[in-house]
């Protein structure tokens, strides 16, 4: 059969950011997908060498607008290792609060985008309305909605007052009630199931060999989540990963949907159990040596390799983001699918291209 190569992206309705897939088709069936990136490369790793290391906290937040706090958290934990600095106990719990609020709004964003991808506009609007409430509490606690800049080397920059904590808890009650209302539509609606069940299957073995991370891996039965290592206050709060086994786009949807409830529970618990005390420990000296810091973002594992040379500037700052790790899995899930399913399958890895390119 004759083959046709068509470009999918870099401009496409399901792609808020630019990536191109060169799709080789036989009739309407995809037989090969080759990715092309390079549209938004910003050279953040180089900037990380030119800045002084405390400035990089603000730089790395700009790697991704959706999980900005978690980038800063990963970087700060790495620098704290190099400085032999222990963050204060209270700050570890506040870090969990902000990290999970980011995961919560990120998963809402993705669930809404998925609904939008197949034209389910009312579901999209309801999910994003819920997301706005979470963005409001980020603004309440940090003064900003997206780049909140509350994470600092040694702890956090701002405390969360009892009054703010009360508003957060009320907001979470509202969000959970809304999610309860949307659950049956998201998980049982025939149009959603027909677009996701059995589509883009990645087996557990493929997920591991292709280096998949986050919900993409967990939807294929890989019970791996960096929060299991207990960084920040996750160890004290107790954590079990959300895992599904079908490996299809529907399983990836279920993992993210279930993780919204998990994030709500973690924020509630962190606010309830956060000890009183200082929110930041004073950092002294300059980073010396090298370390690897890993945390779990909404899209999966992020890795920071940080090398210091005893000066204010780092020798090397390397960032591997989760979408970068999930692109090979996307290349494996597309062959065999219909062209009409490609947009939903691309979306099913929750691609973040500005993260990928840095």
């Amino acid at each position, binding site marked *: 059969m004759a083959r046709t190569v068509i470009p999918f992206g870099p401009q496409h309705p399901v792609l808020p950011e630019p990536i191109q897939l060169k799709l080789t088709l036989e009739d309407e069936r995809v037989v090969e997908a*080759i*990715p*092309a*990136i*390079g549209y938004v*490369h910003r*050279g953040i*790793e*180089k900037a990380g060498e030119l800045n002084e290391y405390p400035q990089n906290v603000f730089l790395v937040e700009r790697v991704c607008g959706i999980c900005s706090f978690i980038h800063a958290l990963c970087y700060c934990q790495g620098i704290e*290792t*190099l400085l*032999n600095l222990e963050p204060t106990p209270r700050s570890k719990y506040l870090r969990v609060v902000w990290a999970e609020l980011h995961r919560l709004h990120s998963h809402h964003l993705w669930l809404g985008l998925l609904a939008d991808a197949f034209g389910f506009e009312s579901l999209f609007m309801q999910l994003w309305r819920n997301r706005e409430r979470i963005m409001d509490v980020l603004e309440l606690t940090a003064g900003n909605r997206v780049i909140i800049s509350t994470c600092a080397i040694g702890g956090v920059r701002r405390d969360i007052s009892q009054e703010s904590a009360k508003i957060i808890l009320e907001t979470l009650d509202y969000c959970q009630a809304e999610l309860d209302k949307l659950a049956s539509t998201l998980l049982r609606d025939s149009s959603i199931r027909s677009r996701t069940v059995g589509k883009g299957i990645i087996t557990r073995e493929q997920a*591991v*060999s*292709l*280096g998949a991370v986050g919900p993409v891996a967990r939807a294929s039965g890989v019970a*791996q989540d*960096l929060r*299991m*290592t207990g960084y920040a206050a996750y160890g004290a709060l107790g954590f079990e990963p959300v895992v599904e086994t079908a490996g299809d786009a529907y399983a990836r949807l279920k993992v993210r949907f279930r993780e919204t409830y998990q994030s709500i529970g973690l924020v509630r618990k962190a606010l309830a159990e956060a000890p009183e005390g200082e929110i930041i420990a004073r950092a002294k000296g300059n*980073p*010396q*040596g*090298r*370390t*690897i810091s*890993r945390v779990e973002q909404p899209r999966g*594992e992020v*890795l920071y*390799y940080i*090398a*210091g*040379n*005893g000066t204010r500037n780092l*020798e*090397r700052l*390397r960032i*591997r983001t989760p979408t*970068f*790790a999930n*692109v*090979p899995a996307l290349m494996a899930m597309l062959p065999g699918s219909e062209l009409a399913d490609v947009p939903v399958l691309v979306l099913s890895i929750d691609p973040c291209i500005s993260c990928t*390119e840095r």
Partner: protein
Amino acid sequence: MVEQDKATPVTPPSTGVTVAIPQGASIENLERISLDELIPRVSALAKEGWRLVTLTACDIGGAFEVLYHFDRDLVLSNLSITIPAGQKLPSITGAYLCAFLVENEIADLFGLEVEGLPIDFHSHLVLASAAAPTPLLKQPRSERGGSNG
């Protein structure tokens, strides 16, 4: 695996190049190996079910250090090789196909040529055609010796 990260300077196995490795805090489970050992060791890790997390390349002056990070059950294991400027880096895509992306990125950002790439973006995975080449080298390419550096 043995932690060997505090000694400096070091002469990595079979390269003959003496390089400066940062002192101070160190990476757990890091093992320095020779270039000849790379493919067999990586293939063995793939068979044992380790996930390739990523590669990290560093310009260490006259040579590159390339670290290979692997994960199994949330434990990180790292291999390190040192490769003189001008020498080609063998691709590990035979064991981990997913490495092609990061190997292309290293070629872009460091000018380190990778041998055996199944998909070769010819130094334009992340860099635009008009972008300055090899932005992560410590010195501009024109001031360095060797075809790679």
